[in-house]
């Protein structure tokens, strides 16, 4: 054992330290643990028992087995950028942090795949292969710091997922330590459709409740030959949303198709990257197409003609890369930009069928009026993923609760038009109760039954993803207590 002595009377701390064979690979003092009491969802906090930093799969498996034998709750954590609280140690878990397992193991351009450790940062993969003209498609907005292991846990999305799919569409193989400590290899060699139930698909997006991923084989893609970006302004949200459907129906799947409403535009224009959007418009669309250079102009012309058909007020094509980057910076910093017009904001993550957009925006308007809080809408319009940003001031007593209620009401509105409660942020702790908007008891039981196959004693990341039967009231009170 290297480094200084462990100063703890807890035998488990000593044992865990022995497994990772380095006293610097474990945190157990309160002041060190504070940084791990929550993730990107900061409303709920709890201290872990310890944080351990294994260096390889063998150590992860040993840690898991130790926790099992000693009935210690545990969970895995990557960069901690999750927005729904999936990595919060609700039960005083031992956190198995995977940030030291951050190697790019191999790149195989011929077979278009790369193998990474879970702590490898998303953007670093693209950076490692971009000189050869390749990239890794899933690009959540936290991609400069989030890990691919975390992306697998959350089935992360990103701006390109309209055309290229979310994380699950890019995972070819996983090495997983299951909660009993066995190491399994799914999709050996990254060959798709291996015989047997699709555990790759099941584990991806399971929010760290079915196992700990220790090695990931991902698909990599060739960069598109060309791309082009368009801004379109509409006086009427319905026109804008109909244009979205019509563009895709015209045979074009844009790489990205984003929408912002009036309040969101006010926010981004007041923030760091204004681009001069007109003040009195109802919606702006940011549309990007990519692909074969010879086809781009034809696609852009089609998009322009669709926009005109739906009464676009003004439409412009980015003249150069600089202009394109400015438009994207304006959009991508949209959440943070709300800080320019409101002290606090809460972001939600509903999904709706595209055609229901006008109806849902009207509902969100009513929710806003009812709560007395302004709500801005930033929308991955192409795939129906709506991010209502509820603007509030936490310093005003009761306003945080109102914001939470309004957020939940927005999700209910999404669910009621045939949508869902989360498109890319995950359920975690935040939306456990909202799961009832989309699934009944039996359907939730069908899912927890699957969990019990992998996680029979439920020591791994317990209390996440599912509402606890009969405990809803208790959780709501907990939530309230955490805010107060």
């Amino acid at each position, binding site marked *: 054992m290297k480094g200084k002595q462990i100063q703890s009377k807890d035998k488990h701390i000593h044992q865990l330290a022995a497994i990772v064979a380095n006293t610097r690979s474990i945190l157990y003092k309160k002041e060190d643990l504070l940084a791990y009491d929550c993730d990107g969802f900061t409303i709920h906090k709890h201290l872990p028992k310890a944080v351990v930093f294994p260096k390889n799969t063998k150590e992860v498996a040993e840690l898991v087995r130790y926790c099992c034998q000693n009935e210690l709750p545990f969970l895995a954590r990557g960069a901690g950028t999750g927005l729904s609280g999936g990595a919060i140690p609700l039960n005083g878990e031992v956190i198995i942090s995977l940030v030291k397992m951050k190697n790019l193991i191999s790149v195989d351009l011929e077979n278009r795949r790369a193998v990474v450790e879970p702590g490898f940062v998303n953007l670093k993969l693209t950076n490692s292969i971009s000189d050869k003209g390749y990239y890794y498609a899933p690009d959540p907005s936290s991609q400069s710091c989030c890990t691919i292991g975390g992306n697998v846990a959350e089935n992360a999305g990103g701006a390109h997922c309209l055309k290229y799919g979310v994380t699950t569409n890019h995972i070819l193989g996983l090495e997983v330590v299951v909660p009993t400590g066995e190491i399994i290899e799914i999709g050996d060699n990254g060959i798709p*459709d291996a015989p*047997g139930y699709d555990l790759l698909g099941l584990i991806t997006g399971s929010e760290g409740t079915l196992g700990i991923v220790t090695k990931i084989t991902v698909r990599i893609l060739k960069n598109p*030959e060309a791309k082009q970006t368009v801004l379109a302004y509409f006086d009427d949200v319905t026109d804008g949303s109909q244009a979205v459907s019509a563009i895709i*129906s015209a045979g074009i799947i844009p790489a990205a198709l984003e929408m912002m409403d009036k309040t969101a535009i006010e926010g981004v224009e007041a923030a760091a990257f204004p681009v001069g959007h007109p003040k009195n418009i109802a919606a702006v669309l940011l549309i990007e197409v990519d692909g074969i250079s010879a*086809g781009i102009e034809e696609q852009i012309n089609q998009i322009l003609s669709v926009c005109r058909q739906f009464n676009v007020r003004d439409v412009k094509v980015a003249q150069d890369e600089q202009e394109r980057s400015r438009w994207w910076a304006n959009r991508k910093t949209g959440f943070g930009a709300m800080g320019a017009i409101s002290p606090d904001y809460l972001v939600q993550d509903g*999904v709706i069928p595209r055609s229901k957009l006008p109806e849902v925006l009207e509902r969100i308007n009513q929710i806003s009026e009812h709560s007395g809080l302004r709500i801005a809408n930033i929308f991955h319009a192409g795939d*129906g993923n709506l991010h209502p940003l509820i603007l509030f001031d936490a310093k005003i007593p009761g306003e945080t609760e109102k914001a939470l209620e309004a957020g939940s009401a927005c999700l209910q509105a999404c669910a009621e038009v045939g949508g869902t409660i989360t*498109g890319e942020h995950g359920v975690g702790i935040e939306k456990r109760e909202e799961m009832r908007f*989309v699934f009944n008891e039996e359907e939730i039981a069908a899912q927890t039954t699957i969990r019990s196959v992998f996680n029979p004693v439920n020591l791994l990341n317990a209390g996440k993803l599912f509402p606890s039967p009969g405990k809803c009231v208790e959780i709501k009170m907990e939530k309230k207590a955490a805010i107060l």
Partner: protein
Amino acid sequence: MIIEGGGTKKGFGGLVEHADICLSLKDYKGIVEHNPGDMTITLKAGTSYLEVQNYLAGFNQMISLDPFANEHTSIGGVIAANDSGPKRLGYGSARDAVIGMRLVYPDGSLIRAGGKVVKNVAGYDMNKLFIGSMGTLAVISEITLKLRPVANYQSLVLISFPAGNLDVIKQFVVTVLDSLMEPITLELLSPTLAAKLTGRREYTAAIQFEDVESSVHYQTTYLENLKPEGGTFTILQQEDANLFWQAFYDLYPGLNAENKTKSAALKVGLKNMEVLELLEVTERLESGQIHLLAHGGLGHGISQVYLYGESDRILSAIQEIRKLTSAKGGYAIVKHLPFSERLKINIWDESPSYFFLLKQIKAKVDPNNILNEKRYVGGI
């Protein structure tokens, strides 16, 4: 209980010939909901796959799957068997297209998985469990799929390579894959299969492009300039490309009544470039006693091999092919084989190391083993 759709996959797995009940979903058909603006469709499981594609063509939309189907093939069967063809290179497979399901569990309860929207991370991605599960976990009653627009234009390029040197093919394919072109298929046909479809008994690459017209022409021109010496280059445009693919899918032995007895089909998974080695093996096995047709996706690694001959010849050829797949860490699933022969071979190839989890999933979901007994991996 045996579950059946259009009956075109009766030769796919299944070691039990009799059951108390055959639950046929043949008449459980129709569109539950089609939202053209949302580009999603919900179908009853027994709906004819080809009928629904024809219907969607009227909206310039499609289900982006290209299974080996005829007029009897049901969408439920396509999804339960996770069938896919060459176009999965461009469009993905069932796991990329299915966004929701309605299932009847073995205890009779109705369970929804996923939803009706294209992006959804609420709860476990339960859809994945049932895709390809051969009806061993639940009866798929409805399926919701995301649709794609039909591209404005399509062309199929057929490039045949002069006999012998696989390195030339590999070099060509690597160049295409490393280029900026965006092929929807990059399927290599064995000489025997090419002979049936094009009349030339040579390794032939079938490369499809679907996009706006200018982009398609640009890409076919690129390929023309890349064409290897001594090779032939043919472009089939629009409807001609469709006719080629129709003939291609029709060759699948499970669909062809006259072949039903002395034929077999394999789905083989390998790494992309290993497809070349597979086709070399099938070419070598071809003899007076056994006839093999094969094709494989050099961009996705999934191949199909059709075998015709006396059953002992077929079985020994499968063993030969499995020598290759097992050495490479791939697999060869027997997709089609008459019942009497299925008992003599492991249909699903080696069970994975994590089979204990699969077995427990089956035991938890279907504890009384009611659905499609012994239809799946490792006797599940």
